[in-house]
């Protein structure tokens, strides 16, 4: 069946399907029950699945992740909602020292099939701690996987695939795109979770993005086309493990690469990609890999966030600089 869904609704339906498919799936988080979460992603689920499977937890993020570890050891598949990106840090210890390492520590005896859902990124005019992009912290940690969806189709299938997956996954949801719509065929065969995807073919520059910046990259490609430039846009979809094979193929053709993300560029995902693309495509490159991202400042007050966040013009500026080499 094909229906028009927002990213938020696609996540809601995906969670519902995962809970129907596996009785061990337990949702945990702050205000996810009666309220349905501050973004209403879990709307109606507690009513249908009960308080034992949609758990309004005490207001304590380390508590949510720490008890999720215990539930996972007992055979459950916890899906933890962190209310906002900037609130994940109280749980950072549990995620990095326990969730990520228990499988290795136990030599594979203890699985940690935990999904950590985090609304990610800025652009909603919020106060501090509500607009951050923490993906690099998690991608830097062995044992975790990091997925960043950009559209309703990936949201619907990705959340189900993440829940069914045996490893812990930080599942980043593009907060300001929650209300973006697309056609979702719920009978289709989903694409693999940890695979990047070429969204738009092009010959001049390869533009990489994930999560909320995919739409920005596509808008830039549209604008560039009107100026006679052909951008190839790749949605990375997964930040860890990175699927760079399609990226290498593309860059060997275009010779130029621009990476776009909201997070600060220094030691960010783009830095890793630049190193890997340089290593794999050195002889094809016509220009250094360029990064477009946040600055090395705290996320600014919301009246300044449009200056901080990459937009169409900053992507095109990077494309210009790349072409100028």
């Amino acid at each position, binding site marked *: 069946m094909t229906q028009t869904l927002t990213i938020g609704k696609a996540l809601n339906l995906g969670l519902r399907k995962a809970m129907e498919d596996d009785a061990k799936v*337990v949702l945990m988080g702050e205000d996810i029950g009666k309220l349905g979460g501050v973004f209403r992603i879990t709307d109606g689920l507690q009513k249908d699945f009960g308080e*034992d499977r949609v758990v309004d*937890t*005490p207001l*304590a993020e*380390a*508590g949510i*992740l*720490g*008890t*999720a*570890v*215990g*539930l*996972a*050891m*007992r*055979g*459950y598949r*916890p899906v933890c909602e962190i209310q906002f990106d900037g609130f994940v840090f*109280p749980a950072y*210890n*549990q995620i990095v*020292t*326990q969730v990520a*390492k*228990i*499988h*290795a*520590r*136990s*030599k*594979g*005896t*203890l*699985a940690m099939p935990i999904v950590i859902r985090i609304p990610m990124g800025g652009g909603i005019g919020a106060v501090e701690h509500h607009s951050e992009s923490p993906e690099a912290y998690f991608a830097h940690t*062995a*044992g975790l*996987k990091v997925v960043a969806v950009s559209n309703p189709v990936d949201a619907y299938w990705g959340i189900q695939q993440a829940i069914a997956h*045996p*490893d812990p996954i930080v599942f980043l949801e593009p907060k300001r795109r929650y209300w973006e719509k697309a056609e979702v065929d719920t009978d289709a065969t989903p694409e693999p979770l*940890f695979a990047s995807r070429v969204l738009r073919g092009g010959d001049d520059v390869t533009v990489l993005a994930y999560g909320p910046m995919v739409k920005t990259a596509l808008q830039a490609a549209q604008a560039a086309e009107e100026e006679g430039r052909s951008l190839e846009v790749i949605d990375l979809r997964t930040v860890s*493990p*990175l*699927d760079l094979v399609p990226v290498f193929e593309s860059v060997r053709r275009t010779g130029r690469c621009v990476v776009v993300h909201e997070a600060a560029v220094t030691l960010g995902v783009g830095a890793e990609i630049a190193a890997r693309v340089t290593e794999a495509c050195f002889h094809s490159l016509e220009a250094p890999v360029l990064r477009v991202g946040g600055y090395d400042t705290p996320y600014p007050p919301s009246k300044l966030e449009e200056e901080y966040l990459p937009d169409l013009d900053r992507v095109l500026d990077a494309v210009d600089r790349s072409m100028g080499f």
Partner: protein
Amino acid sequence: MTAMRQATEVVDPVPGASSPHLPQQPDLVQLLTPEGERVEHPDYALDISDEELRGLYRDLALVRRWDVEATALQRQGELGIWASLLGQEAAQVGAGRALVDGDMAFPTYREHGVAWTRGVDPLHVMSLFRGVDNGGWNPVDHAFNLYTIVIGSQCLHATGYAMGIQRDGAENAVLAFLGDGATSQGEVNEALIFAASFSAPVVFFCQNNQYAISVPLERQSRVPLFKRAAGFGFPGVRVDGNDVLAVLAVTRAALQAAREGQGPTFIEAFTYRMGAHTTSDDPSRYRLASELEEWKLRDPVARLKAHLARSGIADAAFFTAVDAEGDELAARIRSGTVDMPDPAPSSMFEHVYAEKTPPLAAQQAEFEAYHASFEGEK
């Protein structure tokens, strides 16, 4: 009115915290005096056979022998580090023997005595401290989680596991171990809150050994630790941690209450770390030798031995046999540790994920090719 009185109650300073040798501990549950005399407690009866008593002594003596051997092995360079349980044998054996089939335990990194009661091979524990393993045993087979080194983190795992037991409709309980220092951790307090909120079948077993490495209890708490439980809304009890019988009785009762749906209990086992925090520590920098001398008078192993000997439950031949068994165990631990092979270099790439990711597989291949490039060289 009761609640009102509780809220305004002025709690005494920690009895004996700054001077643990002071005798006034009115709330301490005890079934065996330091001299080995059996006493009764109105709330904690213990029905125990002579054979079980001898078994407890054997546990205490063998665990201590293991610990002594491990410390020696570290001094000889065979272990990277060792966290001694000297002085805490009764707290650990008593708690461990209170568990029944279907229960689960979550240790810190010092629970060698509990590991023993769960049937974990001491060599598997040694493998961790020798540096050949980050875990060492199968936590599912032994219903004994792997050691958790980040202070207090395991209390949340225990609580979550107990929430799983609730969802399974099972009548089992979880025993979460922690130390006095851990009670300052946010995660431990979150565990107490989650356990209370969901009435989870978990018992928090806090071995108050008086020091968090060098920092004494009075820097961690203005109230006796067991009284903290009241603030979370569940029972707290202080037991003489050097009295294996009292620990067994108190822990059994708490676990049974949890299994019956009465929710969590916080047990403070009042004890003393007679050795260093680890082999890297130097307690002479922060505590007086006289303090240790006072606590030697409460030695948990000698206490049960005195009781068994005085009451005729065990004779000299029994003690000789246990000593001999201890020497055999120590010899096995020594040879098994010294002969323990190093792990294969490539093994670090295993089990990071359920299935190796392509980037990690590529990294492993590079690592192996690098090593292979030295083959044939001296």
